[in-house]
């Protein structure tokens, strides 16, 4: 027991003494959050667009107005010819273009089918997808109006036009602020990067310096060594989490609808995973440089495959299976649940269980590898 406390105490002394480490650990997460809270934004509005109205009829103007007034598109330029569109799309000055060919209004009036063209800059396929969806929706609404108009005139025939309308209710995040979705995710990421890196590098550092040798020769048992080295990082992680939640709540006004103690408890389960991975990395690396590369190798999937930005259900089956072994997958659901949905133990117990089981396995495997030997 004495030994464990000695190690913990030593870690903290070393931490405080490094003039760079201390601020990096505690201030940078907050800075990151501030920055990313404002930047990580998936709301797509005011897509710069170009209009090429070759018909210039009342009908075509009505059509184009539907886009202009929707709030989704911001008409930057009106051009006469299709070739002029290139200029805008090539430079990225516009991401979408709407083309109304000549004869649009006449065709509609004559009861014939008219066509329009929607052009999107596929190089930014993410906003292109959304932009095309919006555009299709708006065009569809226009179609609806035309149909209804027609029906007004044939109401005599006793046909009543039918429209199934939808009333949309948004739960948990009524203004659909993507910040509310992003920031909890960023919290998970920061926690993961910090604790994983500290754990993997911290142990390898002693190996490289030669002090690990001196530690091994003492009667300290392996589990004491591990606990002593990792416990400070748990504490650091919790403090960081507290900072970040505070900033999220009072600066970004992210709702905190669920139980904060539960959040911290589950953060511990999450850290069991990240520290386990860090420990594992330290057992397979001889130098800090090796540890560093291996750490990146593990961090990347945790970010990209954990369901932070890219929905897991859109991934190929293989990756969906793999994501079950990725701790961030469960933690993201937990954070979003507790903060935004007010979820509690009854809703999240399965995610928590997954975290605990995964963490225990990871930790167990790492401890097995960690012998008190030099080789």
């Amino acid at each position, binding site marked *: 027991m004495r030994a464990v406390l000695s190690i913990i105490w030593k870690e903290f002394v070393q931490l405080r003494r490094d003039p760079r480490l201390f601020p990096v650990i505690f201030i940078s997460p907050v800075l990151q959050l501030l920055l990313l809270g404002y930047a990580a934004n998936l709301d797509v509005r005011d897509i710069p667009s170009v209009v090429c109205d070759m018909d210039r009829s009342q009908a075509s103007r009505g059509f184009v107005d539907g886009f202009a007034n929707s709030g989704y598109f911001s008409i930057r330029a009106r051009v006469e010819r299709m070739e002029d569109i290139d200029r805008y799309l090539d430079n990225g000055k516009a991401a979408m273009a709407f083309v109304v060919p000549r004869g649009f209004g006449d065709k509609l009036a004559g009861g014939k089918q008219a066509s329009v063209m929607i052009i999107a800059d596929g190089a930014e396929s993410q906003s292109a997808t959304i932009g095309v969806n919006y555009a299709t929706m708006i065009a569809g609404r226009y179609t609806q109006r035309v149909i209804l108009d027609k029906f007004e005139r044939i109401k005599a025939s006793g046909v009543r036009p039918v429209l199934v309308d939808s009333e949309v209710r948004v739960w948990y995040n009524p203004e659909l602020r993507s910040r509310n979705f992003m920031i909890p995710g960023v919290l998970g990421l920061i926690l993961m990067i910090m604790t994983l890196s500290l754990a993997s590098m911290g142990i390898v550092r002693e190996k490289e310096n030669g002090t690990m040798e001196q530690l091994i020769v003492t009667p300290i048992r392996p589990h004491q060594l591990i606990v002593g080295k990792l416990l400070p990082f748990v504490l650091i992680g919790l403090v960081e989490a507290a900072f970040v939640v505070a900033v999220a709540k009072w600066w970004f006004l992210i709702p905190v609808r669920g139980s904060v103690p539960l959040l911290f408890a589950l953060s511990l389960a999450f850290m069991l995973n990240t520290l386990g991975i860090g420990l594992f990395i330290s057992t397979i690396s001889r130098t800090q*440089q090796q540890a560093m590369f291996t750490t990146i190798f593990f961090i990347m999937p945790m970010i990209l495959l954990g369901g932070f930005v890219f929905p897991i259900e859109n991934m190929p089956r293989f990756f969906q299976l793999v994501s079950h072994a990725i701790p961030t997958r469960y933690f993201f659901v937990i954070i979003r649940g507790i903060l935004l949905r007010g979820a509690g133990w009854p809703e999240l117990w399965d995610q928590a269980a997954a975290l605990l089981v995964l963490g225990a396995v990871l930790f167990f495997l790492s401890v097995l590898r960690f012998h008190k030997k030099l080789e």
Partner: protein
Amino acid sequence: MKPLSLRCLRPVIKKEFRQIRRDARSLMFMIFLPAFMLLMFGYALNFDVKHIPLAVVDEDSSRTSRDLVDKFRTTEYFDLKAVLGKTREIDPLMGREAIRAALVIPPQFSEDLLAGRSPSVQVIVDGSNAMSGTTAAGYVGAILQSYSQRITLEALERRGLAGFAVPLSQEVRIWYNPELRSARFLVPGLMAFILMVIVTVSTAFSVVREKERGTMDQIRLSSISPLELILGKVIPYVVISLASAHLVLLLGEILFGVGIRGSYPLLLLAMALFLTGALGQGILISAVTRTQQVAFLIAVLTTLLPTFILSGFVFPIRNMPAAVQAITYLVPGRYFLAALRGIILKGVGFGAVWPQFLLLVGFAALSLGASAARLRLGDEERPRRRRRVR
């Protein structure tokens, strides 16, 4: 300032290469990790929002309502997970993220339709995932719209008013990426992201390691100037990371069909500039930290999340508040990505991307210059005042 001498440069380059070669695992990582990441994520990641888990509460239970439910069952935009009996069953499912949208069909649905009234269904969307929330609402709207149209047209047909065409057809054209395959969009982004992180982090170690081991003094005492030291350290990594970048391009072409539409020399120039800047940043970090551990943390924190979020890789810069957009100029990945997309996907020439190039040059000059200055100033142990411990 001492002029650059090749004679002094060469030993530094040779030493750095030798050190790199000796650590086989790190070398392998540097060359293959980016390509491996591209492989993994190119297949795994896309921006399609499909298969949104959905639940339906059918309070009508008629043939018509079941017809509507079928529409949602068969579309690939939704994954129908459950058909529930009561609305209060929605909450626990959504709370657990088992579903992200729910459709409530009111009891009078088929009745209203038959009578020619316009019924309204309720769509509940999980806003905590704003992206799929908006999109889900949109999809529902589109599906309902086409359903409505079909019903109306059928009714008309029954009255013998066939041949009533849908007045509007829209042709959607996607430029540069016709099938809107996210991979084409992601590949340049991934390339910028992965290269930035790996390159900066690897070089962040190079100077600190010497400091930690104590060989720094030796170097400083020799006739090698700081600039030569930096260039000597940077050049091997530039070579290695260029090799790595080409591997990524090759894989991008073979596996994802992302061929280079524009000029290759231009692309090479962009890569070289970007890599140099990233390396410079790594060395700068290396010069201002004392331990490898801190160098790593700072390198990761200044490249990983910022590049991911601020370079335009995933989140369009256009949507960010003006203040944040200004900050994105500090992220070299931003201009590199813009140049990449232009050259690879759009095939534009220098005329379209020269601002990006200018900024890349600026970044490289800044980071290298700052590193040289810092190294010259030195990080000597200035005699400190005895610190009171406790």
